[in-house]
């Protein structure tokens, strides 16, 4: 995917606007899902996806993308989620809306996932989503969040351990 992205990005920088449409079609569903599962607000997530792509378009001058387009979009979206929740009525990301996962076909799974996400602070929820839902590698995540790979490994271990302990108490 990265090679295709890079090609599209280069094409866009050389004036091919349809390349940006291809990038949008390829990445907007995953980006939107990430934002939605992170902040739990559909409208806000849609705005953030649009803003992320607008920021990407603004990078056209001088071709200023230092990492992969996909990572760049996720980092931008993630920063926008945090900035927006800080700015708009000081809303915390700790509380998620109740219906944000309601589209999963199995209601029991919805309940379990809701419980898992609600039990995690935003930074851990974000890490779990990047790794398990979006499939970013440990090195990618370390680069995106500007932390060491060892830090990513330790945090992932703690999340998994905490969820296991929570499961144990529920049983």
């Amino acid at each position, binding site marked *: 995917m990265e090679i295709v992205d890079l090609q599209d990005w280069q094409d866009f920088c050389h004036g091919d606007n349809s390349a940006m449409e291809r990038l949008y079609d390829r990445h907007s569903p*995953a980006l939107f899902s990430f934002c939605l599962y992170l902040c739990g607000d559909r409208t806000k*997530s849609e705005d953030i996806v649009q803003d992320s792509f607008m920021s990407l378009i603004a990078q056209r001058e001088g071709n200023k993308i230092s990492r992969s387009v996909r990572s760049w979009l996720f980092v931008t979206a993630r920063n926008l989620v945090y900035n927006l929740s800080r700015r708009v009525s000081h809303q915390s990301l700790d509380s998620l809306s109740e219906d944000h996962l309601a589209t999963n076909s199995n209601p029991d799974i919805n309940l379990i996932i809701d419980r898992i996400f609600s039990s995690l602070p935003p930074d851990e929820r974000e890490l*779990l989503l990047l790794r*398990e839902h979006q499939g970013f590698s440990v090195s990618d995540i370390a680069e995106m969040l500007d932390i060491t790979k060892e830090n990513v490994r330790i945090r992932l271990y703690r999340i*998994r351990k905490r969820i296991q302990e929570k499961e144990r108490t529920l049983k």
Partner: protein
Amino acid sequence: MNSCEEFQKLISVCLDEPLTTEQQNKLDEHLTRCVDCRTFQESALNLRGLIRSLPFQSMAPPLRRPSPWWRRKIALPFPAVAAGILLLAISWLTHLSPTQFERVDSNIEPFIIIEQIDIIKLESVSAVKLTNEN
């Protein structure tokens, strides 16, 4: 590497990156005799399965920007349009100026028009005289 905590850290790492052969062998050997670590591995794999089962959500379709008024199609009923055209035609005909009249009836000889105007003038002058006399 002796404690279960260390092995569980290794289980977690193993889910994200390949282990060395030595690490993998030690872990496999430990898992055969440790129920707690197997439970942790199972839980971590379940969590992965759950999160991966989350569908990619789709956004609402983008709203279309309304077209400018000059491009909009206006649906008017035919009788209203016909009545409007008729009214315009009547008002145009009733407000024709003499010059426009001349232009329209260009086949009429100029002296006939002058004669007509003279008759109209005579009639109006006589009408004024009559009113003055009364």
